[in-house]
């Protein structure tokens, strides 16, 4: 018990220490005057955004963009992943290209989406889709390639049709790794959509952050970033819980 408690104390101490230093720097007004608002001021701004409900339309916009983007990413990623994973030849040819693209900053494609899709939701949905696509596709490739060949042979020898082999063998054994990819993809889609909003937009969480930044409403900017991080953490926690649940069923 002690071995678990001690690190926890250090963690809590670190966060508290950070907040205290932040508060002192902010109050002293010697360093970074005006750009380090008091923690209470930030919390008040966050509360104001929540209690007046002014943040909710923007929250809705971002969640809408990210989830439509994630759905597109999941569909295309899973389809491509199964095609490449089940065909070793095509996998060898195309997987390196996908790996290369996965290691590039996806936001750089945003201006292309802007000129083709416009400055409204569609370009952010495209950003979310591209961002979420790679972790899902890469996980699905591995998942499809790792389906136990013996199971497939058995299914075929008892006379299962292609469709039955797919639904009874492929789907159950790929469900977990694909969802693990979706968990990563959900985070990436959310960040992709918000980054798009930060650059060019007229609604969404990224929009209110950059609006506050441009008008030098510093406390409001920090509050919006705080709430955005909270949303990202929530998405991560929910997806992790579902994953743990699924693992429980699988065993």
């Amino acid at each position, binding site marked *: 018990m002690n071995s678990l408690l*001690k690190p926890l104390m250090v963690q809590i101490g670190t966060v508290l220490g950070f907040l205290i230093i932040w508060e002192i720097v902010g109050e002293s007004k010697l360093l970074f005057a005006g750009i380090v608002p008091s923690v209470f001021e930030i919390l008040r701004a966050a509360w104001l955004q929540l209690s007046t409900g002014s943040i909710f339309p923007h929250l809705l916009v971002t969640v809408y963009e990210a989830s439509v983007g994630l759905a597109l990413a999941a569909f295309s990623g899973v389809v491509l992943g199964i095609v490449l994973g089940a065909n070793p030849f095509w996998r060898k040819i195309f997987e390196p290209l996908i790996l290369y693209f996965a290691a590039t900053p996806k936001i750089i494609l945003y201006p292309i989406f802007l000129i083709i899709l416009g400055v409204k939701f569609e370009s952010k949905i495209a950003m979310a889709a591209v961002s979420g696509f790679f972790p899902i596709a890469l996980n699905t490739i591995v998942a499809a390639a790792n389906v136990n060949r013996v199971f497939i042979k058995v299914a075929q020898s008892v006379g299962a049709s292609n469709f039955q082999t797919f639904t009874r063998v492929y789907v159950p054994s790929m469900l977990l790794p694909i969802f693990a990819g979706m968990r990563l993809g959900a985070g990436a889609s959310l960040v992709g959509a918000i980054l798009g909003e930060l650059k060019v937009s007229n609604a969404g969480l990224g929009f209110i952050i950059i609006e506050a930044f441009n008008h030098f409403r510093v406390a409001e900017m920090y509050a919006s970033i705080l709430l955005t991080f909270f949303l990202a953490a929530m998405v991560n926690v929910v997806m992790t819980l579902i994953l743990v649940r699924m693992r429980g069923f699988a065993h």
Partner: protein
Amino acid sequence: MESWREKALRWIFVAIFLAVIEVIVRLNLVDRIFLTSPSLIAVAAWDELFSGELLSLFLLTAYEVAIAFIVASIVGLCAGCALWRYSLLGRAYDELLGALFASPLILLYPIFLVIFGRGINAIIAMGTLYGMIPIVLNTHQGLRDVDQVYLKVGKGMRLSERQILRHILFPAAWPMIIGGLKLGLTYILISVIALEFLVDIGGVGTLASKGYFWFNTELLYLGVVGAILLSMLFVTLLGKASARLLSRE
């Protein structure tokens, strides 16, 4: 290893893809504002190269990445060693850093802009933060997972603490540390280019942004292709370098 045939086939597919785009644009099937052809992008690159701007943009990006990487490695390696030396801190900060790394840190960039000013310092700071975390975590893990038997042998041979560090601990942790440096450098490159594009400051990333705001489609695609090629080049070089560093041991 992959055969030359697979490699050739891969690049043939890439060439076909580019050729299709070229034909689509040449036949005016889409508006030139939306899509431009590879040959026109190449012409734009040639022009930019001689006006001198392209090269300086690439150098600026390389400079930002280099500074961020140097700072991140020094701080990261020291912090990783400290976390290993004091295991209570190690257990506490491993989790904190892991949580930080999983969070969308890039969204903090407006804060970096207010604190470091709207310039390349903010970009370097963001890159440093991103690159540092995997270096710390991997250095710590590498040192921690060194087989205890090696250390016992070293003590049995009456090596001093420094000799144990130099001849046993670091060589054993080396592959893990290299992995951390590699990951750190990749994250630095991604965050630097992304930030250059987002705030319109610095090197290669700004090209695409300028192209969009000036409605210069060739410049826009040049920026996009330049950033992607730079990342690819970088990933390839990094793979080669780390393979060489590891094989020397």
